[in-house]
């Protein structure tokens, strides 16, 4: 670990957002704006069955009755939903074999460090690559299929596995859940689908890499992961976008379902374009992520490192329905310059002996605002439920803000909840101590921040942890001195 940390420190140069390139690929674009025709357009392009059209239209009609939520501690000008393009897909579409992937698309992902050739991939990671609205490649499908694991794009799942999709899609996040979930349900165009059959331990990390490329286009992907009885899967999600001085909307929905004794580990390194130093541009990341521990003794664990986006609105949550089920949330959220993050989790205890653990590390620098918002709810029947929450904030400089809004609702007298919170600063004395030992100020900040986040980073798969450390350092460049 120490070597990688050093390499990381050496790699911290004066670079800014390094994923900000725009690739010139031929894309099929829907007309700008949103109405029932656009929904028909998407549905047709995807060649989906009839029931999906009904599903989308129901969501759309409901969405029209809803108001955008305004309770988060973020501010932004009103979003014109008619000025967004809801579908953009590379013209050369889903291919039969990886060799057929458009070389230009292949280059995009290579530039991002995500090679699509299986032999070159990091050992033990299967990738689904999503560009704008469409999945362009999924690796290691055959190998996984031998174990009965389904790992494919959402479009493909709707075609090939309609029973599973119909049964679970919207079962954790119904379209009525919130404004952005309704919008997503109406217009989502792709995403990843995972099904792990009973008793199977998925032998490799499954990963989706999301990339927004087209201008004035929103990304609305949908991920559905089902872990059947006694199975295990670890899933990774990464994302980047070009530098543009407009704001782009990303409204994803992720649903996880863990049956009896199953375990899902979901890790995110979110690095959407955060906007420039003056706060121009950047992604609005309004995402609904929720898992349900349906079965007894099941477990869902969210780990997220959030460094990107102009605005993050995101609360990966767990509904602990099965007796003895476990929910975890480990989070590092970094904001710099004019970024705003309102993020946290919900742990809903329904079953007996359910346990949840929340570790949140917020880091604010520049003129940014970083908010933790969390809910721990213990329902009447959740005998002996337990929650432990630790919520730390780290401030760098004098012009940023850290805020904590923990909500705890306990309806069962046998439940125990604990909440600990701290706020600290990277003090001048800490930096001076490092510098007196020969470590530059930037490297010192990276070192201190990584130390502060260690508890969370330990929960990431190794390759991802190294990536996350680099990101933390880059995100905080220029935040001191």
């Amino acid at each position: 670990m120490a070597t990688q940390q050093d390499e990381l420190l050496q790699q911290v140069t004066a670079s800014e957002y390094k994923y900000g390139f725009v690739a010139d690929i031929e894309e099929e674009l829907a007309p700008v704006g949103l109405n029932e025709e656009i929904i028909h357009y998407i549905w047709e392009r995807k060649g989906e069955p009839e029931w999906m059209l009904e599903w989308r239209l129901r969501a759309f009609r409901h969405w029209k009755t809803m108001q955008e939520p305004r309770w988060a501690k973020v501010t932004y000008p009103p979003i014109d939903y008619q000025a967004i393009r809801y579908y953009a897909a590379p013209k050369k579409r889903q291919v039969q074999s990886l060799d057929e992937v458009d070389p230009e698309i292949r280059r995009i992902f290579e530039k991002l460090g995500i090679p699509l050739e299986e032999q070159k991939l990091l050992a033990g990671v299967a990738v689904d690559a999503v560009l704008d609205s469409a999945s362009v490649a999924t690796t290691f499908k055959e190998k996984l299929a031998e174990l009965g694991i389904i790992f494919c794009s959402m479009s493909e799942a709707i075609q090939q596995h309609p029973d599973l999709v119909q049964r679970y899609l919207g079962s954790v996040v119904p379209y009525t859940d919130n404004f952005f979930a309704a919008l997503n349900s109406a217009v989502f165009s792709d995403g990843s689908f995972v099904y792990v059959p009973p008793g199977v331990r998925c032998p490799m990390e499954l990963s989706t890499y999301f990339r927004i490329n087209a201008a004035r286009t929103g990304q609305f992907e949908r991920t559905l992961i089902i872990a059947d009885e006694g199975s295990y899967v670890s899933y990774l999600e990464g994302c980047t976008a070009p530098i543009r001085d407009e704001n782009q909307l990303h409204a994803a929905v992720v649903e996880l379902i863990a049956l009896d004794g199953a375990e899902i580990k979901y890790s995110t390194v979110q690095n959407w374009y955060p906007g420039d130093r003056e706060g121009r541009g950047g992604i609005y990341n309004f995402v609904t992520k929720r898992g349900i521990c349906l079965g007894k003794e099941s477990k869902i664990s969210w780990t997220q490192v959030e460094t990107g986006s102009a605005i993050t609105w995101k609360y990966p949550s767990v509904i602990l329905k099965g007796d003895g089920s476990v929910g975890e949330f480990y989070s590092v959220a970094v904001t710099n310059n004019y970024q705003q993050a309102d993020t946290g989790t919900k742990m809903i205890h329904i079953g007996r002996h359910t346990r949840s653990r929340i570790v949140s590390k917020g880091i604010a620098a520049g003129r940014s605002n970083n908010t933790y918002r969390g809910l721990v709810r213990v329902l009447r029947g959740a005998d002996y439920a337990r929650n432990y929450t630790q919520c730390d904030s780290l401030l760098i400089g004098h012009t940023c803000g850290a805020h904590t809004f923990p909500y705890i609702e306990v309806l069962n007298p046998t439940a125990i909840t604990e909440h600990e919170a701290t706020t600290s600063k990277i003090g001048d004395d800490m930096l001076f101590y490092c510098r007196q030992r020969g470590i530059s100020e930037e490297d010192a900040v990276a070192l201190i921040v990584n130390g502060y986040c260690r508890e969370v980073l330990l929960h990431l798969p190794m390759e991802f942890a190294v990536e996350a450390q680099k990101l933390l350092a880059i995100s905080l460049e220029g935040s001191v001195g």
Partner: protein
Amino acid sequence: MDNILIIRNLRVAVEGKEILHGVDLEVRRGEVHAIMGPNGSGKSTLAAVLAGREGYDILEGEVLYNGMNLLEMEPEERARAGLFLAFQYPVEIPGVTMATFLRTALNEIRKARGQEPLDPIAFLKIARERMSWVGIDPEFLQRGVNESFSGGEKKRNEIFQLLLLEPQLAILDETDSGLDIDALKVVASGVNRMRSPERSFVVITHYQRLLNYIVPDVVHVLYDGRIVRSGGKELALQLEERGYDWLRAEGEELVLPSIS
């Protein structure tokens, strides 16, 4: 010329209040200088200014370190050029292991010296050896920097870092404060082990006690922001006996002796 450090007429203010009123000091390579003085005389200010801490206004004077204009160098540049400060109050850095911190520091300094970086194995070997010199358990390498160390452990940890980083000029800022006699001996033996014709020390202390174990070549008395007297190691004993008041009694007639 073999002066590693030359301070000329250094006047320093903190928040508009002048603390050092013109300090002159020359330290030769291989020498150990003790700077003694009562509370508030400016000892720690001097140490902080030499190491480059922010918040100190240089009103006048210059400091040459190995012939370089020290006051124009960033703190990390000073450290990489071989200047080390053992802190009076070492800072805790939670979550950053001693091993990561010190290997990063050592490799920065080695880079500046034109040496290859140490890999983790080589680093561990040298770190364990130096820890044993000051009686620190190697297990400390996996703990956060100074994180929940006792006062004595923090001080010993500073000396361990001195042993590891092998500076040319080490400034010890009240390293003896808060140490019992056994810990004091350990700290002193660590420092004595490092004494060499190539390395100089400036030992800042309130009490003579430490100087029984780290015997200085020269003792200076800093009083009210000036060096009011310099002499051999017997000066420290004199101060121990008579306190600082006799210097006050002699008042302003004191002329600054220059050490050559």
